[in-house]
């Protein structure tokens, strides 16, 4: 395998792992639900996308050969992360989950 391709795969894997960890840290330490929703739904999707891209490049340079399953995973995650986050935010708004003072927007009081 070419050394340049190997560097690209390593960089994509590290990028994906770091993005996943940042999303999980955001989920663990942020103060209320609406700020916690930001971390995983954005960072984790990019993280898994980078890892799937690394997997595609890795298997394209192996005798196993590459395929389309990683593209399916990436497209599916990129398509389904915003609707699920939207539905969770609507459920939390309906349940009137308490929020910290800096979280703006109060749609039920309009």
């Amino acid at each position, binding site marked *: 395998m070419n050394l340049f391709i190997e560097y690209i795969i390593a960089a994509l894997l*590290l990028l994906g792992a770091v993005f996943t960890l940042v999303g999980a840290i955001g989920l663990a330490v942020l103060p209320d639900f609406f700020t916690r929703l930001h971390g995983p739904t954005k960072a984790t999707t990019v993280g898994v996308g980078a*890892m799937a891209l690394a997997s595609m490049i890795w298997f394209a340079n192996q005798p*196993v050969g590459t395929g389309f399953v990683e593209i399916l995973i990436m497209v599916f995650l990129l398509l*389904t992360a915003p609707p699920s986050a939207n539905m969770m935010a609507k*459920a939390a708004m309906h*349940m009137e989950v308490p929020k910290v003072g800096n979280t703006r927007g109060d749609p039920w009081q309009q």
Partner: protein
Amino acid sequence: MIAIVLKISIALVVIAALLNVYRLIVGPHAPDRVLAIDTLAINAIALIILLGITLNTRMYLEAALLIAVMGFVSTVAMAKYLKRGSVIE
């Protein structure tokens, strides 16, 4: 070099999964727990992809796709249940 980077990546993703489990246990309200389970499913996909690269096989990627589909459906069903009181009206 790929082997070392794979070990580091698996360690980082496992730490992320442990933080998600912390939020799943602590999480003061039900939407926090739904969000933690959704993120755990995405972390499981990342771990399966890393396992596939480690073992040099493409056999587990269909399992990752199935976990993606089931994670989305279960998240939508739980959010719908929390919002409306029933999944299918």
